[in-house]
């Protein structure tokens, strides 16, 4: 799989944990430290659920669907929030966007 670091994320983008990060949990909530920039992020319950989904490559749309099933909310709002959050995680190298075509082969 090739990474696609520059494109803007869409619901079709395949995303997953960045290999250069360490994930741990405190009281059931996830905390992630990136090994490239050294930054870490503590996640709330919803963020932790999202993070768990990303252990295996998923499309952003699939992640949104999963969260919409777990947490009631407007699908459009969820998609918008998830995209914004994933962009933040990608900016600090905690997740990566993958080339969907090469992952399918």
């Amino acid at each position: 799989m090739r990474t696609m670091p520059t494109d803007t994320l869409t619901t079709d983008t395949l995303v997953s944990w960045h290999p250069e990060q360490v994930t741990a949990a405190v009281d059931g909530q996830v905390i992630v430290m990136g090994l490239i920039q050294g930054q870490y992020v503590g996640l709330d319950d919803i963020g932790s659920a999202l993070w768990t989904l990303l252990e295996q490559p998923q499309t952003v749309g699939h992640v949104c669907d999963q969260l919409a099933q777990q947490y009631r909310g407007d699908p459009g709002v969820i998609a918008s929030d998830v995209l914004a959050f994933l962009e933040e995680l990608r900016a600090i190298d905690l997740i990566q966007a993958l080339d969907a075509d090469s992952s399918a082969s």
Partner: protein
Amino acid sequence: MPLPSLPAPTGHGEPDLTLSRGPVPHRLQAPVWSSHFVEIGADGAVLVRVPDVVGFLVRDGCKVILDEDCDAETSVIETFLFSTVAGAVLHRRGIFPLHASCVMVGDVAVALAGVSGRGKSTLAGIMSMHGHDVVSDDICPVAFQNGRAMIAPGPCRIRLWPDSATLLGLSHEALDVGRPNHPKRVLSARGTDGAPKPLGAVVRVAIDRRIETPILHRLSGPSAITPMEELVYRARLGRRLDRRVGLFQDLVRLAALVPIYQLIRPEGSFDPALLVDLVRSTANSAH
């Protein structure tokens, strides 16, 4: 070299760290990292050099060399040995240095954590004056053994800013000097023996000028251990000594084993006994 502030060792094994006088370079050749007083060499050696005061070289985390030309008083040597040098040794050995002063409450140790200036030493001084033995000041080396976090006792000397000494009702002039030309003074408190103490709670100390009464609450989730820099002694140095992941994992492990609280106290005058009661309550709830 006498180190009168250290508790007497309780074990009978071989020493795992030697301190000796010897040649210490003024600067390291081609350091991979340097800050105001500290340099790290390509071989992992750490030089701690305060010009015209002291110089230490830490090798392999088990050998500390004090500059043979250093003529500083013992209390000055101890001040640096038990601060930056100890931090370098612990990071080099992969032992987690919690940035905290620590006191005994019953049969457990309670660590009073926080960056400099938040009042952890002041609070340790208050606890000491209310009868609690001091386990360490500023650095708590944490060892994880058999599912417990154990604190190795350090010097029972508490370094206080002048306003803290006043708050404790101590005459600033009557206290020892820890470091030349530095306003902090040293309170020699009653310490413990050298045996490791089980950690019962971590109390993160904060000051808030908007409140009038101290507040204690338990922290949970990632907020209990973030910002990590507030809980790790010389975190930047540790990261440079390849402890980035280890420090992260140790903090997560600590949070799993020990309750972590935040204690916020007013900035102005307050009843120290209130703080003492709140700190005591963290150890009681730990049982």
